[in-house]
């Protein structure tokens, strides 16, 4: 995709809040697209996965049978774009019978009580 280099010099803290499953709606894919495009702007990016958003990071997704792209591998590539702050809420995992071992990428697991502190650090919150 063509993108204009941003030369403004401002660095803001962007938080992408992911609360929905992949595949059922387009939002998980679009969140990832935005993060990747945003990487060119050298901003301070964090991603937070809460509620059904934790399913975005589930290992072994095979969407061939529903004729959709397997974009889950892209989460592993985020590091190359300097997107290294991935937070997953423990309670959201537990409610769904999941643990960090079920996820395809290394994340920092935080508690529900820590979410507010993370949000409080941000300049921009984008919710998908």
């Amino acid at each position: 995709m063509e993108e204009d280099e941003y030369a403004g010099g401002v660095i803001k803290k962007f938080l992408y809040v992911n609360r929905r499953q992949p595949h059922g709606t387009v939002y998980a894919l679009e969140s990832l697209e935005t993060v990747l495009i945003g990487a060119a702007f050298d901003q301070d990016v964090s991603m937070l996965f809460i509620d059904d958003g934790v399913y975005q990071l589930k290992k072994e997704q095979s969407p061939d049978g529903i004729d959709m792209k397997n974009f889950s591998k892209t989460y592993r590539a985020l590091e190359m774009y300097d997107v290294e702050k991935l937070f997953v809420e423990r309670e959201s995992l537990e409610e769904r019978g999941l643990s960090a071992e079920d996820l395809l990428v290394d994340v920092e697991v935080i508690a529900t009580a820590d979410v507010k502190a993370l949000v409080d650090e941000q300049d921009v919150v984008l919710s998908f």
Partner: protein
Amino acid sequence: MSTLNIVNKSPFEKRTLEQCLKRVGDGDSVLLIEDASICAVAGTAYQDQLNATAELTKLYVLQPDLDARGFTDAKLLEPVQCVDYTGFVELVAQHDRVHSWL
């Protein structure tokens, strides 16, 4: 540092309201708009939860959304303040950031 949290889903249909409320705290505000506006009305199953939230968090409702749904003269929860679109704009300006719980 304060966040304006916006909820637009009915808690009778989706769990967005409770998902928002358990992650907000001191100094934050919650604005109920669109289909979430109806839970500002007194007497719903969510009134205790909202009243408890209001001990730390300010609660607002978008009046035109209440009006549209037939609750212009309804008794609202005591801690809820009504805003119009101009008040909505002021709330956004007064907080450090906006978090729309979609």
